[in-house]
């Protein structure tokens, strides 16, 4: 394995370029599905690309009173964390790198953009940003703990915290989904909370606080934030497919890639459907659900996987 192969893996496939294109296409599919379910037409396939290019070309204004250096660093930092996490998540069975215990590192890296949003909101002079930032942090505690429990439960069950191993032990039909359905549901809800989607779109509730933490962002920095969210969605779905839905399995020769893509798309469809079916919750309602329902369920699931 030469340096060229490594570079190709990092930047082309399954690295940055592939992920960005796939994430934008996924965000189009998401928007299109939501639109069709809402009896609308929806955007053409190139809309997310056009949005990104347009934003990248736009004037970038930072309001007076905000911290310019940190404000510029946060979106880059969040994007970098998401991309770094993606290196250890097998896509179509291929990960750029893998080491024992990488699941914990990936979950940590994926949680950092939420903290980035909190800081971004807090740095803004706008009151909507401050409220949005506060809500991001409150939401962070409500979803992150159940999400961790849901993601670790398969690791406890299969006695490994390495994503690669967790994926292969499920082959061919021993999916963690069948053994830990509650853990899967909790992880999916946690992911929705992480992505700030309906019904947990509390930090960026448009009718309440505008764009929340991102209210004062524009141009390139906003484009990077939006790209981060699109990438987080795809990377999160990949992680769920790898850990709960058996990754490539069951796949006969040549069928691995379409099977993996299909699983990811089905999970995306679930996210879109949830987006259509619910109203936004209040932050206190989310905290109640997170701590009174999801955390005890996650604990029960963890204990179950320890005893089994």
């Amino acid at each position, binding site marked *: 394995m030469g340096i060229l192969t490594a570079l190709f893996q990092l930047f082309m496939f399954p690295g940055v370029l592939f992920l960005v294109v796939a994430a934008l296409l996924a965000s189009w599919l998401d928007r299109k599905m939501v639109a069709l*379910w*809402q*009896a*609308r037409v929806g955007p053409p396939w190139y809309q997310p690309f056009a949005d990104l290019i347009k934003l990248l070309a736009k004037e970038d204004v930072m309001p007076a009173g905000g911290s310019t250096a940190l404000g510029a660093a946060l979106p880059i930092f969040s994007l970098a964390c998401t991309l770094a996490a993606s290196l250890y998540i097998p896509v179509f069975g291929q990960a750029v790198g893998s080491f024992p215990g990488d699941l914990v590192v990936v979950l940590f890296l994926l949680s950092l953009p939420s903290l980035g949003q909190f800081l971004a909101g807090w740095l803004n002079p706008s*009151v*909507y940003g*401050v*409220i949005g930032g506060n809500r991001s942090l409150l939401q962070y505690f409500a979803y992150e703990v159940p999400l961790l429990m849901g993601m670790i439960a398969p690791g406890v069950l299969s006695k490994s915290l390495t994503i690669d191993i967790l994926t292969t032990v499920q082959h061919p039909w021993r999916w963690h989904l069948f053994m830990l359905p509650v853990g899967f549901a909790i992880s999916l809800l946690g992911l929705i909370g992480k992505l700030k989607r*309906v*019904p947990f*779109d*509390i930090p960026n*509730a*448009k*009718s*309440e*606080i*505008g764009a929340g933490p991102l209210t004062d962002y524009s141009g390139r920095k906003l484009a990077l934030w939006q790209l981060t969210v699109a990438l987080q969605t795809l990377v999160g779905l990949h992680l769920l497919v790898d850990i709960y839905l058996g990754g490539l399995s069951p796949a006969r020769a040549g069928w691995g890639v379409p099977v993996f893509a299909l699983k990811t798309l089905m999970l995306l469809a679930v996210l879109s459907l949830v987006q*259509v*079916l*619910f*109203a*936004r*919750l*209040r*932050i*206190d*309602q989310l905290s109640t659900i997170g701590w009174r329902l999801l955390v005890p369920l996650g604990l029960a699931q963890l204990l179950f996987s320890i005893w089994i």
Partner: protein
Amino acid sequence: MRKTTIPIGPQHPLLKEPLSFTLEAVGETIVSASLRIGYVHRGIERLSQERNYAQNVHLFERVCGICSHAHTTCFCQAVETLLGVEIPARGAHIRLIMCELERIHSHLLWLGVLAESIGFTTVFMYAWRDREIILDVMEALSGGRVSHAANVIGGARVDISAEQAHDVEQKLADFATRLPMFEELLTRDRSFRARTQGLGVMTEAMVHEMGIVGPAARASGCTLDMRLQAPYGAYPSYDLTVITESAGDVWSRSQVRLLEMQQSLALCRQAMRNLPEGPPSVRVPRRVPAGEVVARIEAPRGELVYYVQSDGSETPARVKVRTPTLPTLMALVQLLPGVETADVAAVIAGADLCIACADR
């Protein structure tokens, strides 16, 4: 704890029309609210003194983009009383049909705005999609989707042919099939109820004290409906019941509006079938005898009052409009303190404000 000042408006994603709330919050709870209105004041009452009565019908149509027909109906009724003119039964029925159609589309519009304010975009899309049917019917009957110009002093400008009545009946039958979905949703959906029940409660005492009218008053248990208490036009010939709820929260208001939509639809279809023969309007003189009059009708948002004073010339000496939104605005200033910041949107959207009406 430190107070945070949260501005809602004059421009804000929640508001469809400009108005400005300045809220002070401690943590997530609002502790005080102040209101500023007048951003869309166009001086319509003053303008009306420089136009003759026939022109004023078109002027008052432009007070509001949602309840435009209610405004012209009320103004025409006031002037007709001054003139001592009885409008033909057919004209009164056409007015009633347009009024009830307007009530349905206004209530659906409100539902969409409320749903969007609590992040339920699907309901917003569905409500506004089905509202299009009603707007299409209104366009077919009058030629206008928003400003219908369906009224003239002395009756209705438009007439409904048998062919039109048939088309409209079909469209309304189609619309009737859409309502059960909203009924199911408003009464059963848990995420909708979680965001609206127990929120923005107006007590019956508050309704009386602040003079709140319309669906908001009825949701608090007041039997206040001008169609029954001060019957006008063709309403006396139909059976109506006052739809009330008792809780007075945003959810009860949605229940009242839902039932009113069903009632209005039934009333519309009944009136379409019972359309009396005869001309839709009668000619009236240009000059109006001196005197003053108060006309009241039930607009979609509640009791609408027009006071018209005539000095015997071709133009009115004074017209004063009292819209149902004004007391609701005053009530909001009292309702908002104590509410969580996340619920502000639902409380404001749930009040069914029409700023263009209130500012004029």
